[in-house]
């Protein structure tokens, strides 16, 4: 793990949905080290704790990183007040990302709501080998649709109320895809109930690899304070892993739901 802390200029800021922002940040050393599934730990002025935000785009050549986050409370609202040209204080890149295997022939990427952004780098890597299933509450919450379309991945959008795309949860198209043919890996990020259902489906259908990205209230971000505990199983023994260092990406079979 190689990470650093610094203040980096925001090159582009966009509101991409209600209370949801996209920042493109110039941070060559972070971009160079960053892997899909990792996160950045952002200082919010006036707050004691940093806010973890997953990485949505990595451009190593241009030294750019993209993050997409939702205003969840006062801290993220403070971060959202930053503007283009201002500096953002990040401790990054952090955590254990997704396992990428270019030998995989068919993968499924699933994002639920604000869990969608970390799927974009995977869609860019896997291209036409990937099917992206994203789920949102309603049409107004849909994000990154155009970005996913620019990759060669197939995309399926679900909404809870049917106001956009398919009227269903993400698990319905997932089950269909798993029934249709061999899938090498499923990657997912989103709300816990969604992840739990995905993990159960993958186990049931004997998917070789199911990786999920978890979220937990966090302090240090680097594995020192042991704040972001997550119940896992290792060698058949219960073990409190830590989302910031052992995760945020875990093998779904390790997690005790």
């Amino acid at each position: 793990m190689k990470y650093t802390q610094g203040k980096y200029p925001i090159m582009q800021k966009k509101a991409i949905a209600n209370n949801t922002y996209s920042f493109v940040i110039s941070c060559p050393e972070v971009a160079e080290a960053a892997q899909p599934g990792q996160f950045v730990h952002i200082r919010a002025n006036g707050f004691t704790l940093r806010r973890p935000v997953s990485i949505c785009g990595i451009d190593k050549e241009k030294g750019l990183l993209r993050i997409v986050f939702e205003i969840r409370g006062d801290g993220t609202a403070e971060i959202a007040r930053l503007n283009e040209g201002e500096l953002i204080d990040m401790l990054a890149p952090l955590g254990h990302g997704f396992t990428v295997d270019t030998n995989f022939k068919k993968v499924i990427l699933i994002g639920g709501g604000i869990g969608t952004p970390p799927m974009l780098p995977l869609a860019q890597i896997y291209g036409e080998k990937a099917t992206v299933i994203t789920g949102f509450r309603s049409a107004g919450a849909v994000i990154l649709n155009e970005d996913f379309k620019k990759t060669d991945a197939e995309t399926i959008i679900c909404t809870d109320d049917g106001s956009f795309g398919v009227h269903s949860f993400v698990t319905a198209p997932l089950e269909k895809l798993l029934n249709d043919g061999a899938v090498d890996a499923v990657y997912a990020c989103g709300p816990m109930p969604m992840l739990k259902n995905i993990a159960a489906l993958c186990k049931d259908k004997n998917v070789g690899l199911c990786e999920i990205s978890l979220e937990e209230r966090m302090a240090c971000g680097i594995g020192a304070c042991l704040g972001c505990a997550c119940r896992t199983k290792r060698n058949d023994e219960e073990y409190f892993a830590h989302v910031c260092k052992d995760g945020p990406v875990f093998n779904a079979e390790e997690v005790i739901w």
Partner: protein
Amino acid sequence: MADLSVNICGVDFKNPVIPASGVFGYGREYEELFPLEKLGGIATKGTTLHRRTGNLAPRIAETPSGMLNSVGLQNPGIDHFIESELSYLLTKNLVVLANIAGSTVEECIAVAEKLEQTDVHMIELNISCPNVKQGGAAFGTSCEMAAEVTRQVRKATTKPLVVKLSPNVTSITDIAKAVEDAGADAISMINTLLGMRIDINTGRPVLRNNVGGMSGPAVFPIAVRMVWQAANAVNIPIIGMGGVSSGRDAIELMMAGASAVQVGAAIFTDPFAPVKIIGEMNEFLDSKGISSVKDIIGTVKPW
């Protein structure tokens, strides 16, 4: 360049800044950011006789100018600490304060005995963890229990013994005097203040443990007050902590009577906080023409 060195119980610190126990693990994660040698010392993660898994999550909550934690002493156990962490830390040219805890007096004694065979510089006995059901704060909130556990661990070790006090008491001076009389070589204070947050949408406490220890800038004035009161009550040195976030805070706590300071939650805000605090203390002393940081300890002039 002012002289930042201090001496506590015969142990030389190159500067008075020490990451507090629980914030900094055993140092490895922060070594990615700066050399540990820059620090005066390190107070290692509270370590018990056996591995502890800690509390269920969430263990962390934000509060105005601070935070709550309820980690619950998750640690790999003293044998692992001695085998895998201590010898490494001892190569780093800084003072190692091994923070120890236990559910019973016997457990505290057993942990101290294991450390007696090592080259650790100091033992910091945690009688104030608010996040465990047995031991922890139960020791630290009664003068009799605080004295008893101090007396027993004192017998088990020849290492300088620092006793870490809880602020969740009626009279901090009574507890401070009790552990001094029981043989403590120094006091460190304050541990976190017991706090609670509730998610009003769900009606559930934010922390899975319902309550947790509060730290951060919000508690700093309480730390200053308690260190000052304790310093007036005892003759042993005090390592001050509680919301220290800047060099000015560190100077203030030392003026109140601390011989060194520990830095906790500020490290979560800025991982370089301890290093910056050392620099800021030096700048302040230089600007005042004070040649040694020792010259400010306990120099507050009360009205």
